[in-house]
């Protein structure tokens, strides 16, 4: 395996320009595909932290007193799908707010009375089913002593819709750029094949089988695909390091963003796919030429 690979690398060196152009083009296609996957992975993770899942915050009317709590929790319990109800007294809510807004905490000291309402943190086993959360939340809203219910209604639904569209566009673009990588390899193989036509003819005349002629081309396609994949991921990684450190510097004090590079599994998958594309481009091209 090492000897043929060495020969392939020597041959690629002999057609340096063509091969470099191919690897660069494949790397750009892989870069776009990997960029989308990177955005999806991170957006998904960030979404998870934003998505209340089966959770609703129930804000109570000012007249509510803790003595009414057992009746209210029993009523909410009866609505079904509720797994846990935690009472958050307004004093505790204020303390938490002060902690979260550490920089502007002194502002709260100027308040004469606590403006926050008592609240209930209601958890439901409806994770992933936004419609069901909305249904339960609306029933809670109808109860006495309930001022409002926050379950990420409007903005979350819109965000989810946006993410769905973004994903769809991403998948289409991924497919298009994969096709580009594939066609580029196929075209390069054809060009290299034609520039090496006389060499291939000599091979045939001395008794080379089609298999013997094809194998170096397959290996070349795989090397091109793999090299393009590595180069594309390296560019993306460099860009990721630059952008993520910039984002952390500018937004880090306001929001917690858990930005990560592509997982090892996905990186392996991208490299495998780019190697496969390189081979497949070769395969189809040679199938046509050598039929």
């Amino acid at each position, binding site marked *: 395996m090492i*000897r043929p690979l060495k020969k392939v690398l020597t041959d690629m060196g002999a057609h340096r320009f063509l091969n470099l152009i191919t690897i660069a083009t494949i790397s750009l296609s892989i870069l776009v595909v990997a960029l989308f996957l990177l955005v999806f992975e991170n957006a998904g993770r960030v979404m998870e932290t934003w998505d209340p899942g089966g959770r609703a915050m129930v804000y109570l009317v000012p007249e509510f007193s803790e003595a009414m709590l057992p009746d209210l929790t029993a009523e909410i319990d009866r609505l079904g799908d509720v797994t846990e109800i935690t009472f958050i007294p307004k004093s505790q809510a204020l303390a938490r707010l002060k902690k979260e807004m550490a920089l502007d905490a002194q502002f709260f000291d100027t308040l004469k009375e606590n403006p926050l309402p008592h609240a209930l943190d209601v958890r439901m086993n409806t994770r992933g089913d936004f419609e069901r959360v909305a249904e339960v939340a609306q029933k809670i809203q109808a109860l006495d002593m309930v001022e409002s219910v926050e379950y990420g209604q409007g903005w979350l639904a819109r965000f989810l819709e946006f993410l769905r569209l973004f994903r769809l566009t991403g998948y289409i673009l991924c497919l298009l750029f994969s096709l580009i990588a594939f066609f580029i390899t196929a075209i390069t193989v054809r060009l290299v094949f034609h520039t090496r036509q006389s060499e291939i003819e*000599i091979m045939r005349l001395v008794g080379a089988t089609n298999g*013997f002629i094809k194998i170096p081309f397959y290996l070349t396609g795989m090397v091109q695909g793999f090299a393009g994949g590595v180069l594309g991921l390296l560019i993306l990684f460099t860009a990721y390091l630059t952008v993520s450190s910039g984002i952390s510097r500018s937004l880090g004090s306001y929001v917690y963003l858990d930005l990560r590079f592509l997982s090892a599994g996905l990186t392996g998958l991208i490299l495998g796919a780019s190697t496969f594309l390189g081979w497949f481009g070769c395969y189809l091209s040679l199938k046509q030429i050598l039929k």
Partner: protein
Amino acid sequence: MKRAEKDVRCSRPHRVLPTMEMNLDTRKNAIIRLFNVTKRYGAKLALRNVSLEILPGEFVFISGPSGAGKSTLLKVLYLAEKVSDGQILIDGMNLARVSASSLPFLRRRFGMIFQDFKLIPTRTVFDNVALVLEVAGKKPSFIRRKVMHVLRITGMETKAHALPPTLSGGEQQRVAVARAVVGDPEIILADEPTGSLDQASARRVLEILLAYHKKGVTILVASHHLQQLQTMVRGRTVVLEKGELRMSALKCL
């Protein structure tokens, strides 16, 4: 693949057949037979009703002026070209029935010396010669040993790592000869093997061919400069003129 190889393989002739002693009985064992072979390129006839038999171990000169069909005759023998009419049998195998998948295995029985050498310019002398053994799936250690052996015989050992374009015409011809003999072929087809060479280089190439002839290899040499060749080798001369066979005669020293 191995089966196909088996189909086209035959036992190597080990004894030298004295050309002078041929008779009609031995002709039954001809390794190459052409029956009324015609080759047309469009309206032009390159070969016209050529019938010929060549025995194992024979040294045959194919003579004739330029354009007489000498190269075409060699090309149809190793199936670089297909005949338009007629039949060719190689060791009893009809070339018209050789499938595309068996063709490489048939070609491995031939050693070809091309008029234009047909060396791969981007590969070293060693790699050009080794190609014949690589396509036959030989082991690297065997290839190294065998290639260096034939390069030694052809006097190209010191140029093993040179690229063909850096060699002289005579050196390139010797590399072509080395490539033709490295696979121990049963038949060597040489198209103008001394055409562009000076007398000393031509003599060297011929000596190498002669050495293989003595081992029992059938050799066909197409050339229009036969005087020098015929002073060295005892063989039969086949004369082609405008694609037609004019004469097939024994020539001895």
